[in-house]
């Protein structure tokens, strides 16, 4: 059932109105008559599965796309927004997942980039400096304005982006997956800033796959599915289950699928693995048929440990045993030949060649199996890929579609396909569901369980504690490069238990 909330009161509380926005791309009707209203001092949660049209809606607002039909009104005035600059002038600032900061410039230089305070052509650094400090005080943050952006943490960069938006007098700030790479404390700080912005009368559109955050920070939530507005709800009038149902279009039973566990023999054993300060004396083992979860804060050394096992980096010391045999893994190629695979957390940067087709990406680690004589057997490659497209339900326009044009969930499925085709014994998943919608998440959980049942050793790194607790048979918690502890009785463990291990 779809219930619309009452129309907001007319008058000056209405900040932004998008009326019947329609947008088509060749082959895709991305937005179908979508309307929304945003009031002053309101946080609107924008949710939907990948490909639902969230990004398109935001890009229309931000001047990256022109709508085919529809109107945009800001404070009652109609605006034509053909470019990002026009959006800025209209008071709209968009903070994308990939920040638009220039790493080599300082915080202050980035904030005033393109709008430098000058006198006779010379930059008035002192004036910029004091303005920046003023901004930072306003949102209660404390960052060195002369630090280079490359030296900042992701969370700090994000606050710089927010400060930059405020410095151009933005009335509407759009945040696209702002917490995807933040730690729990950083997320809390961001929420404090958002509440502060609200109190200053700004309107915020908040996009996130993490629905618990929507419930925490948003006043209302609007749901898009297949380019259509499914509904807009007051956050106090809706449940999590209902929200998921609206997004997916069907009721979802349980968040984490259950399965019976019967761990077999040891597949992987790591002893005393070290690399600089990132990985210190890490030892653990993983057995066939189990899902071994890795929990910890960002920077705890989980990803770095896996890269050592996969041969992507060289360890200072340490031993790796695969199926009980001591093995030197000198390169990722070596690891693959030893039946290990790694699905990296950075899908776009490390998992895919974005400018190449889905089929080529699928084939890349599998070409040794597609060689016939001197040449590649592309028919075999296509046939095998077709099988995965079907079984993983990958949505493509064709095998030759470029992976850069896929939604995040489908990109992840292509990465899954390319590694599943290797049929490895040890599969390492680094944040396998980051930035992925609820429906696809569930499919990935099912798949991970199935792989474990097939007798593979699964290692899963996740920063989402419910996910680690819901999926793992055993959990290893890391902190500052060391193994902090191991949890075998997962069923009787709480998020707080893990967190206290991960922090202290």
């Amino acid at each position, binding site marked *: 059932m779809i219930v619309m909330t009452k129309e907001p009161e007319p008058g000056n509380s209405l900040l932004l109105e998008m009326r019947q926005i329609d947008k088509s791309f060749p082959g895709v009707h991305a937005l179908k008559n979508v309307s929304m209203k945003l009031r002053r001092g309101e946080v609107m949660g924008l949710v939907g599965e990948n490909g639902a049209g969230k990004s398109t809606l935001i890009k229309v607002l931000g001047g990256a796309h022109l709508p085919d039909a529809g109107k945009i009104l800001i404070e009652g005035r109609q605006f034509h927004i053909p470019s990002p600059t026009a959006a800025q002038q209209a008071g709209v600032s968009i903070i994308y997942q990939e920040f638009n900061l220039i790493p080599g410039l300082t915080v202050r230089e980035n904030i005033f980039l393109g709008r430098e305070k000058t006198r006779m052509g010379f930059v008035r650094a002192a004036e910029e400096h004091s303005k920046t400090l003023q901004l930072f005080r306003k949102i209660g943050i404390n960052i060195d304005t002369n630090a280079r952006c490359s030296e900042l943490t992701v969370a700090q960069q994000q606050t710089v982006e927010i400060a930059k938006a405020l410095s151009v007098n933005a009335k509407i700030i759009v945040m696209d997956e702002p917490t995807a790479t933040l730690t729990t404390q950083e997320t809390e700080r961001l929420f404090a800033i958002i509440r502060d912005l609200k109190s200053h009368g700004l309107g915020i559109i908040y996009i996130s796959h993490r629905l618990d955050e929507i419930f925490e920070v948003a006043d209302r939530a609007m749901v898009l599915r297949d380019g259509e507005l499914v509904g807009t709800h007051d956050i106090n009038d809706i449940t999590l289950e209902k929200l998921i149902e609206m997004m997916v279009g069907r009721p979802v039973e349980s968040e984490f699928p259950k399965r019976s566990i019967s761990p077999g023999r040891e597949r992987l054993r790591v002893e005393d693995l070290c690399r600089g300060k990132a990985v210190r004396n890490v030892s653990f083992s993983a057995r066939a048929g189990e899902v071994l979860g890795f929990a910890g804060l960002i920077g705890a050394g989980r990803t770095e440990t896996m890269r050592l096992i996969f041969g992507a980096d060289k360890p200072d010391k340490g031993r790796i045993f695969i199926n009980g045999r001591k093995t030197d893994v000198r390169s990722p190629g070596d690891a693959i030949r030893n039946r290990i695979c790694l699905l990296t957390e950075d899908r776009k*940067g490390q998992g895919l060649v974005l400018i190449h087709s889905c089929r080529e990406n699928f084939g890349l680690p599998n070409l040794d199996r597609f060689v016939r004589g001197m040449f590649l057997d592309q028919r075999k490659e296509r046939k095998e890929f077709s099988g995965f497209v079907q079984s993983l339900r990958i949505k493509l326009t064709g095998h030759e579609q470029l992976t850069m044009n896929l939604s995040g969930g489908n990109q992840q499925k292509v990465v899954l396909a390319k590694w599943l085709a290797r049929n490895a014994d040890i599969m390492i998943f680094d944040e396998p569901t980051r930035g992925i919608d609820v429906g696809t998440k569930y499919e990935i959980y099912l798949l991970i369980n199935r792989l474990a049942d097939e007798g593979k050793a699964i290692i899963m790194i996740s920063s989402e504690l419910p996910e680690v607790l819901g999926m793992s048979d055993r959990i290893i918690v890391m902190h500052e490069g060391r193994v902090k502890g191991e949890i075998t009785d997962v069923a009787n463990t709480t998020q707080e238990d893990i967190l206290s291990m991960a922090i202290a």
Partner: protein
Amino acid sequence: MTRKLLSDYGMILVLLLLCVFFSVLTLKEQMPRGSAAVALLTEQINNEFKKSDIILAVGAVNKNSASFAEKLGEELEKEGFSNTTVVVGVPRDLRLALDDIRAKGGELAAIATSGDVTKWGVIELIPEKYPEFSGCKMLAPKSYMWPVFLKRSNLLAIVDRIVVIALIAIGMTMVIITAGIDLSVGSLIALSAVIGTLLMKKMGGLQAPGWVVLVGFLVGILSCGIVGALGGFVVARFKVAPFITTLGIMMMARGLAFMITGGFSIYQVPKALPWLGQGRSLGIPNTVVLLVVLYAVAHIFMAHTRLGRYIYAVGGNKEAARLSGVPVKFVIVFVYIISSLAAGLGGCIQASQLNTGTPNIGIMYELYVIAAVVVGGTSLSGGSGRILGTLIGAFIISVIQNGMNLLGIESYTQQVVLGAVILGAVLLDKARSSGGMLAFLQKKKKY
């Protein structure tokens, strides 16, 4: 199918456009002189004249019309025209022949030429000076309109001119697909030519047998391959920017080429040297055969082998490729070796075409080669590009140069035009791939 071809090789349109353009501008009256024209004229004479008629087959001392006259004479003899005389020479020779016939009291029935002879003054003066021959007929095969640009000899010249650049562009395409660049190829042309010819000189010089040439070539090419391997190693192992690495090699190789010869050219080379660059097999220049074979091999290699696919992957996303088990360092060293081997082969062809080894050949060639690759649609940022696109790019450059030569445009202007056309061609390709000119002009920054 056509659409895919056009999207993969959009530059083929530019090439065709250029060909049409130069064809129209070089359209000219052509005199047929081949054996087909001889046969046609023989048949005409057979029908119109008696076997005893006196016929003169006249050709100017210019290779084509002379051989035409000789061939016609032979054919008429075979047909039984016993009073045929072949005259090859200057107008005076024709006058002497006419005087001779008059002295013998014969009656001239026809003068057969391949065309240009009809414009001789002697012929126009026949009614006045030789009134008794006023009944003689002028016979010539029908002339026709055909562009000089599209003549077989010119088309072969286009290929011949670009062959060195086009060959080297094969290796350069692979390097650029890995997001690299190789500036050393121009200098390696000289290094290979100098090393090769010097070896030939030491192994017997002018009197050396054919296999010496082969040895010289192989040593020259392999030396370049070693240089390329070193460069590739520096790029792959120490992560020095390819631009800087190959810039260094470019300077060193050029210097080495001059050091080896002391700055002089090497002329004491075997007689077999020109075979590769100037010889023909079955009527086709050897260079053209080599070009076709190597492009076919390179295309199949890039499109249908594992290593080819790896080359694209390394250029598309080095880290993703490495984490997929691609031996990235090996791939990088490999492409620089191929590029250098191709440059070495280019040097051998150049030496063969010039019949000498000179340390100052190939200057600026790296830029023409890069231009051919880029015009051919390969992106300098790596990960995409096609071998056959590069061939088209090389031809575009060659066609422009050739066309301007035919039109008599002087060389300074040619450089300006060539540069502008290269830029225009790339812009056109960008416009096409971003969905038409209008979309291109309105294009905004994507983020």
